[in-house]
């Protein structure tokens, strides 16, 4: 089992938009490795004949009828928004300064 490097953790944090400082990276990278190792023990049990599982219950084709059901009003939808304008969610500038 290869180790997760500190750089990889930094990259993942960046993708997830989690701001981690050096001390936090030093702290978290070994912890994540401990978790990965624990999970990796499964591979000792599941042989090549056991495919990776994405869904624990063997269900397929759970479909919904194409029938409209009532949703939220605009007021309800926007009630949790930090800011709203013209009945729309107001969000900060999307393209920031170059990083």
């Amino acid at each position: 089992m290869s180790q997760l490097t500190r750089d990889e953790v930094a990259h993942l944090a960046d993708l997830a938009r989690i701001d981690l400082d050096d001390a936090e990276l030093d702290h978290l990278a070994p912890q994540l490795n401990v978790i990965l190792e624990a999970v990796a023990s499964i591979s000792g049990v599941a042989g090549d004949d056991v495919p990776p599982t994405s869904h624990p219950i063997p269900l397929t084709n759970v479909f919904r009828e194409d029938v409209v059901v009532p949703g939220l009003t605009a007021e309800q939808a926007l009630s949790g928004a930090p800011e709203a304008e013209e009945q729309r969610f107001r969000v900060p500038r999307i393209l920031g300064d170059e990083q």
Partner: protein
Amino acid sequence: MTDMLVPFDDVVASYDPALGLEIHVELNTNTKMFCGCPASFGGEPNTQVCPTCLGLPGAMPVVNGKAVESAIRIGLALNCDIAEWCRFARKNYFYPDMPKNFQTSQYDEPIAFEGYLDVEVEGETFRIEIERAHMEEDTGKSSHVGGTDGRIHGADYSLVDYNRAGIPLIEIVTKPILGTGEKAPLVAKAYVSAIRDLIVALGVSDARMDQGSIRADVNLSLAPKGSGVLGTRSETKNVNSLRSVERAVRFEMSRHAGILDAGGSVLQETRHFHENDGTTSSGREKSDAEDYRYFPEPDLVPVAPSREWVEELRATLPENPAAKRARLQEEWGFTDLDMRDTIGAGALALVEETVAAGAAPQAARKWWLTELTRRANDAGVELAELAVIPAQVAAVQALVDAKTINDKLARQVFDGLLAGEGTPEEIIAARGLAVVSDEGALSAAVDKAIAENPDIADKIRDGKVAAAGALIGAVMKEMRGQADAGRVRELVLEKLA
């Protein structure tokens, strides 16, 4: 930086273009892909939303079965294989058009794959290989405030409406399209047009490019002629009309050639197309944006269409539009030019329905392509939007065939139909349009014309039958157009034999 543009002819002399097209088709289901919110266009902002499509905690998505059915039908119509088992995947990215911070899509297990579509350009057939067609959901709609022209660059902040977020989309992706040379812009346009025709025939989408229910992303790269390699591509996003697809390809070919001729390298990036001048400009920079960390969607179970279901859906497929056109042309006895004009005028379905209602194909074609096209142009509407339906055109032609009216009077009947004056028969009665079939009146009018035009009458007596036109014209004038010109001709020639 101003782009160095190479004239198109010089581009194709030195380079081989490779095209790739990604078309997003918004389905016309009643509801969204994973929730029961209405999928209709044009509602007040944020009135077609619920916890699922807003990505609120705890919301549980469920797949719209009708959307899966449409996806399979599209796949089959594109000659694709249909997956026996496939999953949805989360495409993770941070962008406010998706409130969940991921788009539910399909990654390495598309529902349909390995198909093709044949398109014809100037008599040459190009087989476009389809790599995949997969299911996903549309994003919300952002408007940008501050800055210039409502563009995202330089905006102070943005406003988002999530009515569109979660509407079912099918994304159709081609393999690289090679060997099109100078026809690349036309092939791209013909392909998008063929996809639109197919979608219309399937009835799975409104197929309105102007409203964004069909959107095309155009990938283009150039390689030195004959090198057999693929160059670096640009991806021009959201090209929203057939004409724009052609222009975008043409522009990108000239732009790429400019960069390559100068010894530079093309940047792999997204581009925006500008309708006003047909140019493209650099879009958002993708640094780590391609790193979407796809993983199987845990909240949706896999889709495993039974082979029985797939075959049932195959049986619902409409006739392939290209095959149908060939069949109709054969049945109607149209020349290639007749057919091209008819399709170009947007009259194919109208002529088909008019023929089905009993009119001869050439007569149906004549009315739609001349008289009715002119009226549609005058009114500034599409032919199909004109207030005359194929059954009425067939009824008018039937009256012409029965010699109740002639072509000239038929035009006045169309006036009446457009003005909502009732059925063709009612209009003929109300306007007094019927052809005079009273032989006595006709005969008298012919005698009068002969008497008034002795020179012409002499010519006809001498065998110059072509001169009869002038006398027929005089009779028709006398009868105020309400005579059967064929019968008048017969009478003129009889009397001067």
